[in-house]
């Protein structure tokens, strides 16, 4: 474990990513303390350029962009995390069952996965959000539903490998039940690849959410970065800052998550140690 942490922290980009991510988390946590009123409040004159009374300027209704960015961090992270958790749960369950039991169960589950993979990813997300009406929940659902198949494939592969490893066979020959083999023996061994893939999935989820928001498919009651960009997009030429700051925030966050993911990959994957 310590060894793993050491390897992680040796990786300078990963540390930069981690710091950035902490900053975003901090913003999410302290937003209500910094801005006790809600981020939709019309606080000042519309279209104030950044650097004046408001650090990030105000938007077309006179809302503080900085407040939006801080509150948006909460939504964006929430969507990224929850969607990833759901997708990971579904993906691990499907992939795990398929990989562990094999045979017909595998065939059926993998066909299902394949079917979901054949559907154009973003279009399907749009369809889901439109059908379920654009709320935070439906965006999370949509992102989760389009993200689980790769996870399922990955986990299936890992499970098949683990299933054929001698230690699993030792478990079987000792008379252990399936549940014990799966949860106590196989799952912990696949955890590192799940974590790495999951961390990158968070990044994809954030990008997907912002894409949906850009098309106007975001929750109207929740402040998110995608929402600010979506709303600022029509004033892009007159008030660049409305789009710019949340855009940069997305970019930095996604980048941070990727860096951390890469770092984890190196740290958790002993094969790559020498590289």
């Amino acid at each position, binding site marked *: 474990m310590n060894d793993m942490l050491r390897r992680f922290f040796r990786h300078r980009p990963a540390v930069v990513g981690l710091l950035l991510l902490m900053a975003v988390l901090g913003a999410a946590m302290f937003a209500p303390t910094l801005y006790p009123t809600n981020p939709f409040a019309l606080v000042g004159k519309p279209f104030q350029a950044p650097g004046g009374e408001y650090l990030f300027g105000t938007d077309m209704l006179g809302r503080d962009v900085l407040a939006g960015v801080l509150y948006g961090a909460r939504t964006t992270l929430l969507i990224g995390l929850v969607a990833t958790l759901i997708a990971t749960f579904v993906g691990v369950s499907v992939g795990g069952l398929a990989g562990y039991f094999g045979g017909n169960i595998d065939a059926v589950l993998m066909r299902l996965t394949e079917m979901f993979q054949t*559907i154009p990813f973003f*279009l399907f997300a749009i369809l889901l959000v439109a059908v379920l009406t654009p709320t935070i929940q439906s965006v999370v659902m949509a992102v989760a539903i389009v993200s689980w198949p790769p996870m399922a494939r990955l986990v299936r592969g890992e499970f098949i490998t683990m299933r054929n490893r001698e230690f699993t066979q030792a478990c079987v020959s000792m008379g252990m039940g399936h549940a014990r083999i799966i949860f106590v023996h196989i799952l912990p061994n696949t955890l590192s690849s799940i974590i790495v893939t999951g961390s990158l999935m968070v990044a994809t989820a954030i990008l997907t959410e912002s894409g949906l928001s850009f098309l106007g498919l975001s929750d109207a009651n929740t402040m998110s970065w995608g929402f600010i960009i979506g709303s600022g997009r029509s004033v892009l030429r007159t008030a660049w800052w409305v789009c710019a700051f949340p855009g940069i925030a*997305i970019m930095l966050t996604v980048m941070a998550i990727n860096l951390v993911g890469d770092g984890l990959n190196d740290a958790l994957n002993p094969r790559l140690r020498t590289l």
Partner: protein
Amino acid sequence: MHPGVLYGLRRVAHAAPTILFIVCLNFALLQLAPGDAADVLAGEAGSATPEYMAQLRQNFGLDQPKYIQLLVYLKQMLSFDLGFSHRYGMPVTDLIMSRLWPTLILMVPVFIIAVGAGALAGSIAARNLNSWKDNLISTASILAYATPVFWAGLMLIVLFSVKLGWFPVSGMEQVTAFHVGTARILDIAHHLILPVLTLTMFYLALYARLMRASVLEQSSMDYVVTARAKGLTERQIARRHVMRNALLPVVTMAGVQAGAVLGGSVVVETVFAWPGLGLLAYESLFARDLNLLLGIFFVSACLVVAVNLIVDLVYSMLDPRIELR
């Protein structure tokens, strides 16, 4: 029959249930969405009478029970008839075909450049591990990946079209001119540059990163040591030995992505007014143009199946261990 042909046929037979599933799933999902095509048409018209709306519904077959609607649709589909788009007043097949070309014109170059240049950049980065080249490529690709596509598109338009005036703002060709022949091709190419650039940035980053990891992994293989022991230069080893093996995961990834890519990119098509399938699907969804939307899902699923087949063939060419079964 040639084994490749047989294999292809088997794959197609395999794909049929998948495609059926996709159609049914989307049909069911659309049933959950309130409102129908008649509402939309009336809404667009700005006014309508109840009689008129009832008439519309009857025309569109929306007065039938849902399962009949589905059965009717499936029956049509079996005879390769994708039905009629009520909103656009023309057969879905014609509509999709007229939009498919722009999608392909946009997406195929994106894909080829992204995979090609991505693989190149990735292997350069891997071969110069931790040098400035590697750092540059890695940083640039992570940034490109992290930048929302629509944002990049908007920025490129502002810079290159509006400020510098180098490229047209949007569209697929200069429509006033009604160019033909080479002039048209050049014109389309001119329009193509910005959207291709925007999309390529994203995908290229992805492939560059994948390729870098893949090359690094392959470089630690025993056969590389063998090659070195034969007296090959590092460049020869990279080109002749590592590259081909390292490309395998890239090809797999390309196969997985090709489907999504061929469905068009709603976002980029929106930003650049590119008349592609993605935008059409997006519009048809909000118009509840069921036939059209299902048709698009059907066609893109078919494309995915076709591309996967091609990818598998390519894969089997690259990797002799894979036998087509």
